[in-house]
């Protein structure tokens, strides 16, 4: 069978212009044509080859600047590779820049038509699918209002609804599955599954490694423009995650002095503290339901984790992460992050505080650690990660086995 996508040894370089490159005709004329050439070349993709069978869903993972987006654009024939060849069988659809055709002053209805033709539909096709598109976005009531009155979520939903009503043989998706609320995301995933069942080949770029293991048949891991792994998602993602841990270790400055955490424990680099230290966790407080500092709480009670941070420069969209691990075997009982909750942090600088409140912590009786970390916006490495520093004792009904101890009640209704 013919492959849907065949990529043979493609390379793509971008010119990194020196900062004094003339940006205008005036400057170019004043200085002659000497400064015109590019000073530096960097390779966004280097000798990348792979092929994808029709109907497969492939996840592409890699850190920022690994070449994921460049690869996707080249597949969509936006730009040309410097070397190599791309063969694509079928009509390409793309889920990227979803709201790019929208004009804020036009109504939702008008924008659906404009956006539809931009996505490659004829006017007739848009007319035929119009009701379906609007219903999918759930915007029937607002469709004749100007798009500027829509929330960002509504705009994204409408953009997604239009994009998904095209009939591509190959679908390119760039980080857009985090659109709207959970119900809508579910709907989008359903729709993507339907595409797949119809034999549509899908390339998905994602920072979310778990999404790739969950949905994809194959995964490709890119690093610095090269493919480092291509194969089963579990394996490729596993390697990627391990690589990320290496990256953190590599970036951890060894000269960091030993400090004593407020809980009395020493923070030692590469023992219980990891990270590049561009941003530091300067304090962690565990609070019980009264809002008082606690080292011990009752099972089923709320727990608030207050994290104080300090930064040396501006840090863009860091991810805060909290997990609860069992102290005797390090088992992760609970793990959450701002990213997992779809909470995008702004660019942070200076000092500040963030708190996480867990409404009920129904863990079994025992000793635990609350591990706290701040990660790079794409999980590429840790800024600062405190591992097994903050102990937490949970008191709960004894005698139960297992990880959790939810409220429970036996009721017996047999005859005696």
């Amino acid at each position, binding site marked *: 069978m013919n492959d849907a996508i065949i990529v043979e040894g493609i390379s793509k370089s971008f010119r990194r212009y020196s900062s004094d490159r003339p940006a205008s*005709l005036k400057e170019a004329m004043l200085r002659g044509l000497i400064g015109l050439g590019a000073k530096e070349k960097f390779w966004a993709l280097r000798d990348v080859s792979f092929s994808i069978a029709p109907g497969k869903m492939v996840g592409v993972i890699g850190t920022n600047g690994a070449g994921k987006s460049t690869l996707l*654009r080249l597949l969509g024939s*936006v730009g040309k590779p410097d070397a190599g060849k791309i063969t694509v069988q*079928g009509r390409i659809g793309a889920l990227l*820049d979803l709201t790019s055709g929208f004009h804020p*002053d*036009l109504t939702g209805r008008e924008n659906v038509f404009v956006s539809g*033709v931009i996505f490659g539909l*004829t006017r007739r096709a848009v007319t035929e699918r119009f009701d379906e598109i609007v219903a999918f976005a759930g915007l029937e009531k607002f469709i004749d209002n100007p798009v500027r009155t829509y929330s960002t979520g509504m705009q994204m939903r409408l953009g997604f609804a239009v994009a998904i009503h095209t009939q591509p043989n190959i679908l390119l998706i760039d980080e857009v599955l985090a659109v709207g609320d959970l119900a809508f995301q579910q709907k989008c995933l359903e729709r993507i599954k339907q595409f797949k069942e119809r034999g549509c080949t899908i390339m998905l770029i994602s920072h979310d490694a778990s999404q790739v293991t969950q949905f994809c048949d194959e995964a490709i891991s890119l690093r610095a423009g090269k493919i480092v792994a291509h194969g089963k998602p579990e394996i490729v993602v596993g390697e990627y995650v391990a690589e990320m841990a290496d990256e953190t270790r590599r970036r951890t400055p060894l000269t960091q002095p030993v400090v004593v955490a407020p809980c009395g424990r020493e923070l030692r680099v590469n023992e219980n503290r990891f990270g590049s230290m561009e941003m530091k966790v300067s304090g962690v407080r565990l609070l019980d339901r009264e809002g008082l500092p606690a080292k011990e709480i009752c099972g089923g009670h709320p727990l608030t984790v207050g994290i104080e941070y300090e930064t040396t420069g501006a840090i863009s969209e860091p991810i805060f992460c909290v997990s609860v691990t069992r102290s005797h075997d390090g088992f992760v009982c609970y793990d959450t992050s701002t990213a997992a909750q779809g909470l995008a942090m702004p660019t942070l600088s200076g000092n500040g505080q963030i708190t996480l409140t867990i409404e009920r912590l129904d863990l079994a009786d025992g000793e635990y650690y609350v591990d706290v970390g701040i990660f790079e916006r794409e999980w590429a490495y840790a800024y600062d990660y405190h591992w097994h520093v903050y102990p937490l004792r949970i008191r709960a009904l004894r005698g139960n086995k297992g990880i959790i101890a939810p409220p429970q009640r036996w009721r017996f209704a047999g005859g005696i």
Partner: protein
Amino acid sequence: MIHALSERAAVGTSRKDILLSQAVYLRDLLRELVLRDIKVQYKSSLLGVAWSLLNPLFQLLVFVFLFRVVMPLGISNYGAFAFSGMLAWSWFQLSMTQATGAITSHRELIRRPGFPAAILPVITVTTNLMHLLFALPLLLIFIFFSTGQLNVTILALPLVMMLQFILTLSLAYVLATANVLFRDTQHLVGVFLQLLFYFTPVFYSAQQVPQKYQMLYQLNPMVHIVAAYRDLLLFGKMPNLMVMLFLALAASGLLIVGYRIFMHSRDRFVEEL
């Protein structure tokens, strides 16, 4: 576009069908985007379509005051004369100014897989043609009231418009490309157009230019285009056919060159934006 064609070829339709569906698609794309531009312009303004008319009318008022009252040029039916020249000129000028930014201001469209970037300058030129068409009925009324008649030669107007369309579009391709590489092309174009405005017989007649400058003067293609509009609309005669034929050939050649330059740089747009 070639790419899109080969894509559809894979689905197994005949070449004719592919070309046809591609043509339908491009027509729809052009129509929707032109419509969008026009709607946007009129939605954000109080007077709506009237702006198409008010702008040239005010300018006309200035010309009439200056060149009929203050320093008369001795042109009969001066209002209709200046109005016809102005409509043709503003189509050209607005298209040029806007087309220069056609690529730089549509970054997100250029970066869309499958989007035919070459349509962007066409959209700009077409949008401004629509403005001319909105104002055309007013011009015809104007002509009828000042000359007392409408000439049959008006029917040939679409041909001249087509010629102007091709000429404008070919320049639009070159300017849009240049502006991606050098962002101050936009300013340069502005200055150059202002200059060209005075070297085009918009508010005066080409015959008033002294003989010794005529050779140089006639090199400006807009001189002939504006003259052709007036011949057809006002004077009821056919424009110089040899000149028109020559212009048509030159404009077509220029269009091919401009389009080539545009397509050649197309892959660089993504990187430069």
